[in-house]
């Protein structure tokens, strides 16, 4: 019954193109809500009966293709639905600015792709057949590509879109190769379920590596990440939120799904995931610090958070391999909970950053400042997101990081020497990542929202309309809920990690600890409340004055000129990390003979070290060769006929001498 409804909704998407502009959004909203309710009912059902739900979907290549929803799929479906729901609500306000610029078809095409991104992600996590999976994976990449290039009038957007599309296809090639390889080696079913047969009889590392590259490009592990910092700023904010919040997690889903069928030789795999994740986590946040474009900064933070998720999963795999159940259970639990957490606070940050962009028309944080007075609600939600992403209690980011930390510290004693050293590196890196995230988000929050305005763009900003704040309220509620009562999420979480053949005792042990955290968080809030009351009482009895900021007794005419900028804030970190953070200065030094110096300009640009060295440099070298070969392309038909003739002669000669 529900499956028929699902199909009807998919077909109904075409109606979008027939509607006038003002109704398209509402149809989109209705369709999204329909899909959300249908798929959530499947997911909740799967979690409620704690087993797999299988539904026949469509006839496909002579078989019936079925939707298989186990607890892992169910979890991802709920995460996708959550973010898509807030995304479509937010889109209404955000797209208003484009309403007159875009034609009816363009708007319909946007909503159509947004809907298909939703459907394709749901199907990615619920189809097992390899061909169907790869096809729907491709649909996901294509629909997100069209969403990224929404602002087609900008030339840059198109080139970013193409870059994204090419990298996605390189990823898909790896996935295809991996599936075909497993199929050829075993002859078993051409699906995820068939992989376990290959892995049972072969050394799993090689094939896993190919899968990891394929899925890692989507997830954005460094050094496979270079599409991410470009695509996110180019896309409209609700699209970046969905892409960063859930689409990149499809890569994580793939890795988890492959891991489910591997049962031996796991140590190397776990170590590999862990190392890649530590690199992604540390470098992602380091590169984020030097960004000035708020959405680019958030994109680098997605890489960091993928790193944290990976650290959890990597440690979990090591835990299984080394037979340390507590590390396995808490590592996986932390990693998987962080998937949900990241989808929440990252989409919240993208929505609020999008609201700021809509009101000020700039993403450069150096031009902002003092917005908290003009957009207080947006500022508050951005702060909430910033606190959560920095992993600070009592918000949700802390809970998932705490689970990972607990897993590490509890297993230190029983692990062997090598694992201990690995664990030491892991928690040290987690601590540094946390510290750097704090550094980065104190910077970005205070430069955007606090102090005084740095340019005239801020002057006319006002609070966004309430439809753009609804998603913030929904997500804010979830962030606080997970932060204060994490226990309610442990039961579904333990079901999911049960799929990875982990002994479940550790998850039961963590529940009283989480209860203690809830109590401590409660005390924390009560203490703040108490102090607030005390201060109000104290200040009623004394005079409270307003004055200018103290500027060390110097007369300040324009306070904005004295303010710390984002560049100066990041400067001392930049000096520490010059190896990984490539910042170029654009400045001509004064000449000694220059008696009356002319006006000088000083600019700094940051570029991605990995992108420069792994993508731009090699492709530039290849381009040089291509340009040489381009001599052949003369544009004269006689030449082309000559090439054909030469080719025939060549073939003749080769066959004549039995060379081919």
């Amino acid at each position, binding site marked *: 019954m529900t499956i028929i409804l699902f199909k009807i909704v998919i077909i109904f998407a075409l109606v979008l193109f027939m509607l006038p502009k003002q109704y398209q959004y509402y149809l989109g909203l209705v369709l999204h809500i329909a899909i959300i309710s249908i798929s959530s009912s499947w997911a909740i059902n799967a979690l409620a009966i704690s087993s797999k739900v299988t539904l026949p979907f469509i006839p496909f290549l002579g078989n019936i293709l079925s939707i298989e929803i186990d607890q892992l799929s169910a979890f991802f479906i709920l995460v996708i639905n959550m973010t898509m729901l807030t995304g479509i609500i937010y889109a209404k306000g955000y797209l208003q600015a484009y309403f007159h610029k875009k034609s009816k078809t363009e708007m319909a095409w946007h909503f159509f792709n947004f809907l298909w991104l939703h459907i394709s992600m749901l199907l990615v996590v619920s189809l097992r057949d390899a061909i169907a999976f790869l096809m729907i994976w491709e649909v996901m990449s294509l629909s997100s590509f069209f969403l990224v290039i929404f602002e087609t009038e900008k030339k840059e957007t198109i080139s970013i879109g193409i870059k994204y599309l090419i990298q996605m296809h390189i990823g898909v090639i790896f996935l295809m190769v991996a599936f075909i390889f497993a199929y050829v080696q075993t002859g078993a079913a051409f699906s995820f379920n068939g992989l376990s047969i290959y892995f049972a009889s072969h050394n799993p590392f090689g094939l896993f590596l190919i899968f990891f590259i394929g899925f890692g490009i989507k997830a954005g592990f460094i050094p496979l990440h270079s599409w991410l910092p470009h695509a996110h700023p180019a896309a409209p904010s609700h699209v970046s939120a969905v892409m960063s919040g859930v689409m990149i997690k499809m890569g994580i889903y793939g890795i988890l799904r492959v891991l489910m069928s591997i049962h031996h030789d796991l140590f190397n795999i776990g170590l590999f995931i862990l190392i890649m994740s530590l690199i992604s986590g540390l470098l992602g946040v380091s590169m984020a610090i030097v960004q000035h474009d708020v959405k680019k900064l958030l994109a680098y933070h997605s890489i960091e958070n993928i790193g944290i998720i990976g650290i959890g999963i990597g440690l979990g795999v090591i835990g299984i391999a080394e037979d340390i159940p507590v590390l396995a259970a808490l590592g996986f639990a932390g990693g998987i909970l962080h998937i949900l957490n990241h989808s929440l606070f990252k989409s919240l940050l993208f929505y609020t950053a999008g609201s700021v962009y809509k009101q000020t028309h700039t993403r450069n944080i150096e031009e902002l*400042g*003092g917005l*908290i*007075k003009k957009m*207080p609600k947006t500022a508050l939600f951005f702060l909430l997101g910033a*606190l959560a992403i*920095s*992993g*600070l*209690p009592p918000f949700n980011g802390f809970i998932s990081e*705490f689970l990972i930390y*607990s897993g590490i*510290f509890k297993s*230190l*004693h029983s692990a*062997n020497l090598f694992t*201990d050293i690995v664990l*030491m590196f892991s*928690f*040290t890196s987690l*601590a*540094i990542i*946390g*510290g750097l995230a*704090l*550094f980065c*988000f*104190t*910077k970005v929050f*205070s430069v955007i929202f*606090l*102090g005084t305005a740095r340019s005239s763009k801020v002057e006319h900003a006002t609070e966004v309309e309430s439809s753009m704040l609804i998603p913030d309220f929904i997500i804010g509620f979830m962030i606080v809920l997970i932060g204060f009562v994490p226990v309610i999420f442990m039961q579904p979480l333990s079901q999911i990690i049960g799929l990875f053949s982990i002994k479940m005792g550790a998850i039961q042990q963590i529940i009283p*600890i989480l209860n*203690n*955290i809830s109590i*401590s968080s409660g005390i*924390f809030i009560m*203490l*703040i409340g108490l*102090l*607030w009351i*005390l201060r109000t009482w*104290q*200040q009623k009895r*004394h005079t*409270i004055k*307003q*004055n200018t*900021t*103290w*500027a*060390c007794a110097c007369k300040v005419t324009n*306070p*904005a000129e*004295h*303010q710390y900028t984002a560049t*100066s*804030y990041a400067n*001392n970190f930049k000096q*520490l990390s010059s190896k990984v953070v490539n910042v170029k200065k654009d400045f001509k030094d004064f000449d000694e003979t220059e008696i009356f110096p002319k006006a000088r300009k000083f600019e700094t640009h940051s570029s991605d070290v990995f992108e420069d060295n792994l993508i731009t440099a090699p492709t530039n070298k290849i381009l040089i060769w291509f340009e040489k070969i381009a001599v052949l392309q003369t544009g004269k038909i006689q030449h082309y006929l000559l090439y054909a003739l030469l080719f025939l002669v060549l073939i003749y000669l080769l066959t004549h001498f039995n060379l081919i």
Partner: protein
Amino acid sequence: MISLLLILISSLFFVGIIVKTKAKIAARKMPSVLQPVYDVVRLFKKGAVYSQTTSAIFKMAPLVYFASVFLAVLFIPIGSQKALLSFDGDFVFFAYLLGIGKFMMIIAAMDTGSGFEGMGANREALYSMLVEPAFFILVGSVALFTNNVSFQDLFLHLKLDTNLYYIIGIASIYVFVYIAMVENSRMPVDDPKTHLELTMVHEVMILDNSGFDLALIHIVTWLKFSIYGALISNFIISNSWAIYWQIAAFFGIQLAFSLTVGILEAFKARNKMEKNPQWIIMLSAISIVVFLTVLIITEKIILN
């Protein structure tokens, strides 16, 4: 409960003793040990001046800062005296709790729109990030050593039964003393008595705070010193001692710690600002020595 009381009592005198020690060494007239307390009491009796640039963040920050550190005190046991709050992994909560307080103070400083306060905020953010690994490696090593994962059990099971323990004990105390100095922005990292805003870290962040808020911030400084003093004392106090000996030892150690801070501040010059990161990372290196020692004691690294 007793541990909370002990920490609160010792915190009252801590900064006073530091100031007194410094005055004595400089042959100045000494203020009373309770002078900082009088200052705070006076602040509580005053109104406040808020900058027009600031927003609600600036008003919230001191409250969150105080609440976070006060809550952190509840996690600290002393000898056999239990902490009020204790659960597995509480030191992670402890570290991140201090983090949220710092986060708020940093953005509050940026909220004033002053270049000086931005400078201090930025340094505070960097240094507290750099000092984090030292704390985690150190506590992680002790967790590995005792196979316990909460402050309370950690210190209850810390046994002084091998010679190698002294390496752990001494190195840990050294690192904790300096973590306390960095966390409180004291001498080698920052000079609280400097008169140049450009060279300050913590002091410059709170230039615009006054009245009730400033009083809270001062109390937080006392509490932070007292917390680290209590952590240090746990490396020395054995829980087999009689209760009054434990309490006496605790106060003795707090006194010694505050004297040490005073002497360090009197004789040591502040690091060059750009040398600070390097110096703070050194603490992590020492923590790694502790970690390796623990690996040897637990026979994971087998010598010979």
